[in-house]
């Protein structure tokens, strides 16, 4: 097969996975971070605390884009801080996708 075919294949694959998945180890760390440290305000079960609930039904009217922005940049005027010093954009996207579907429990295999 000609070399360009592999380049083509690579481009196809990368376009199909616009956001790179974190490694399994990093996923475990992210689940821990969200449950424990985000959980300080949003609750260990993400049902909300001084911060709002982050369960899928609570996020239904939000876009992934706005949630990603809130995670990375914070929400001025509220207690929500920016997490961009600790998360890449891909990691924020991964967290948002999990929150909008069903966030993994700690210790369980991340999806």
């Amino acid at each position, binding site marked *: 097969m000609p070399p360009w075919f592999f380049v083509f294949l690579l481009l196809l694959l990368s376009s199909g996975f616009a956001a790179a998945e974190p490694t399994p180890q990093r996923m475990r760390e992210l689940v821990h971070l969200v449950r424990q440290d985000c959980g300080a*305000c949003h609750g260990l079960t993400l049902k909300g605390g*001084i911060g709002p609930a982050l369960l899928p039904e609570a996020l239904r009217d939000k876009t992934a884009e706005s949630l990603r922005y809130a995670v990375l940049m914070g929400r001025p005027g509220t207690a929500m801080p920016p997490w961009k010093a600790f998360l890449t954009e891909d990691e924020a996207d991964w967290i948002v996708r999990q929150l909008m579907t069903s966030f993994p429990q700690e210790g369980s295999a991340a999806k």
Partner: protein
Amino acid sequence: MSWRFSTSLLVMLALLAACASNPRGELRDDTRGDTRGDIRGDIRGELRGELRGELRGTGDLGVVIERAAGRVAVVDTSAKRIIASVPGLGDLSHASVVYSRDGRYAYVFGRDGGLSKIDLLQGIIAKRIVQAGNSIGGAISQDGRMVAAQNYDPGGVKVFDAGTLELVADIPSTYGDGTRRSKVVGLADAPGNKFVFTLFDAGEIWIADLADLANSRAPKITKFANVGNQPYDGLITPDGRYYLAGLFGEDGLALLDLWQPEKGVRRILANYGKGEEKLPVYKMPHLRGWSVAGGNAYLPAVGRHEVLVVDTTTWQEVGRIAVKGQPVFVIARPDGRQVWVNFAFPDNGWVQVIDTLDNKLVKTLEPGKAVLHLEFTPRGEAVWISARDDNRVMVYDTATFDKLAELPLESPSGIFFTARAGRIGF
């Protein structure tokens, strides 16, 4: 322990269970069926572990919250050992504890609205209810007869009979046009069987007077509006005179003199940030368990790597101490000579010690990953520190800073010793 003592305990517990089995209204009795079985079993002389057959006081006991496991460990601070483990307490993220004035029962307030009454001497749940959907802590009244829970959802304060956990007063935190209920923070007991608390969303401080509850059947509420933007927590001074609410949305604290409430709420330390941009706050500071030492109060600065020092006679700032991160808990050793500080993420692996004689740092410790809380023994010769992500509690000598013990516990968070039973604001 004699059979006679055990039998009388059985009778007492049976009576307690009978009295408490039907809390009214929306309250759910969540005491698990098998708990009663455990009680009977225990009284037959099958107490677990260290508690078996021992006639003892509770002055050197306490509990450590194992937040992810929904469990508390009962600990002996003299032996530096875990003596019992009590599971089945629900979601214990941000759980807090108050004690009955005899120091025998720990009331555990869970995030999920659970209120559990733990018998330290038997290592069991004596009674448990679920009183709200989302809760943040509680307090016990001056006379020890009422336990109050502060709730986020539905917002308000609920007051229960400390013996039966039956509801005695419900105080919805309604504000504005009367359709909204605020999250309640900073609940503290005050002399005169009062509870003082703060409405986070409304920016109000309320005093609920329950001294005449038996006759009036309703608490007398005094409200103070416009105390500041986003009051995130509150505390009462050890003498029960001043109530302070920390503000998140602006610099400063709201101060209420409970001896002269008619003078209203005033602002202190209004300019401690002087317009500088705050750092992002990855964990809210806690004011409870605050520290007063040598006439000064030591307070966490929001969004800064500083501890603020305030003169408690003038309420003016008298100093600032630069520390390793944003303080979460700032707690004085009982004698006031030292103040210990832990920090918000990502500096939560450190603990620093301030000598209050000259307000200088004298020690930096690394007790483990994610230090969440610390608690002094009643007279302060030792301190217990929880390191959540290392699954351990470390015990240090406060004079030499030597490690005295290390206890394996799962995701430990709050540590609460029975000496709190006799202290205002705990």
